[in-house]
């Protein structure tokens, strides 16, 4: 975990946090954009925005969390502006395990490419709702606000995404 600065973060703090958490930001953005270039742009945007606004950084927040949130918003904005290019499934981190049990890790590794395909089959909105809720842990109310829809709409979109992904998961397992 990144140590919480007790002052306006300095350049060294930014260097440290980008080294420790940059991968997480990048892969989170990649899951949104499905485009490596856009994901890197989003992270760079976020870093520079955070640097410009470092005086307003709240001491009760973590620098990592703060930049992560800015990066996700930047990714969502970028993907709205451009049609993302297709992403090589190998660029996704969905099949790289570290702390998972051997069985879970094996499942992730085996299912990784299929899951990438399954994620591709989601609509952009479904993918965003799923990623923001399940992976990023955003409250549904925040997702609805960001997507400019009602909370109920965000729920329904999330339901659709989970149904599709679980159906693909079942197919992969050879289950009905």
């Amino acid at each position, binding site marked *: 975990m990144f140590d919480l600065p007790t002052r306006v973060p300095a350049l060294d703090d930014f260097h440290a946090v980008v080294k420790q958490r940059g991968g997480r930001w990048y892969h989170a953005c990649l899951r949104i954009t499905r485009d490596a270039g856009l994901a*890197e742009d989003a992270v*760079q945007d976020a870093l*520079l925005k955070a640097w410009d606004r470092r005086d307003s950084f709240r001491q009760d927040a973590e620098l990592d969390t703060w930049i992560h949130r800015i990066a996700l918003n930047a990714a969502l904005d970028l993907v709205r502006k451009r*049609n993302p290019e297709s992403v090589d499934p190998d660029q996704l981190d969905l099949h790289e395990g570290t702390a*998972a049990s051997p069985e879970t890790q094996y*499942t*992730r590794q085996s299912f990784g490419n299929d899951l990438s395909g399954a994620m591709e089959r989601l609509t952009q909105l479904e993918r965003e709702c799923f990623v923001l809720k*399940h992976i990023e842990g955003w409250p*549904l109310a925040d997702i609805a606000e960001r997507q400019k829809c009602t909370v109920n709409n965000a729920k329904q979109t999330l339901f659709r995404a989970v149904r599709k992904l679980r159906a693909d998961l079942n197919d992969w397992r050879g289950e009905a």
Partner: protein
Amino acid sequence: MMNDDTLLLYHLNDGLTNAERAEVEAALATDEVLRARLARLAADLDTLRPVEAGLPDDMLLRLKASLERAAASAAAPAKPVRRRFGWGLGFGVFAAGTLALLIGLRVLHPPVTDEAPPTIATNAAGDDSARFERSVRWYLVDASQQLAGLGALPQPERDAVLDKVLAQNRLYVAAAERAEAPALARSLRALTPVMETLGALGDSAGDATALEGGIAQLGFEMKVIQARLVLRAPDSQRVPSRTMLL
């Protein structure tokens, strides 16, 4: 019967009222099948959860370089600019600087390989690819010429020229993306913020100097892109690749 959507919201601990949560908990307490369904849902979601991977070294270096430039820029005296393009101004300068640095490194230290240099990939093979590359080169030549004359133009005409070139650049970025030439698209996209920076400059002496510098920077970067395209253009026999060396 409780549906999976309700179980999902219960599992995510979001989107249910207190009464609805209590109802789910009461059902779970007495219904073994429901507990199994919830466990299965949780396991599926766990499988669908990615674990974290690191940042590629080259990307880490680029991000750190951007930060360094931002810090260096913040240490320099602030220059007032028209807020025509918002936050993209600063980012543009750093992105362009980083691009120039990377191009410079690539020129100084070309990769050692026995393979033929990769060509820009397009959806269409052969002639279509060559036509597209020619079109980009013509655009770069034309845009360079238009930008070179910017300093002599009054503000309104300068803005008009910049708007036109910016619009053209966006079209070529989109075209490169359609042609599956992501590196070319990225190189062209990196020109945009520099152009936007120029568009935000006023008529002061300091801005005139910044304008001159920005035009020179754009000219250099456009020439580098052109050079890469020209190097590939004469040999139509090269094996197409899906990447561009930039």
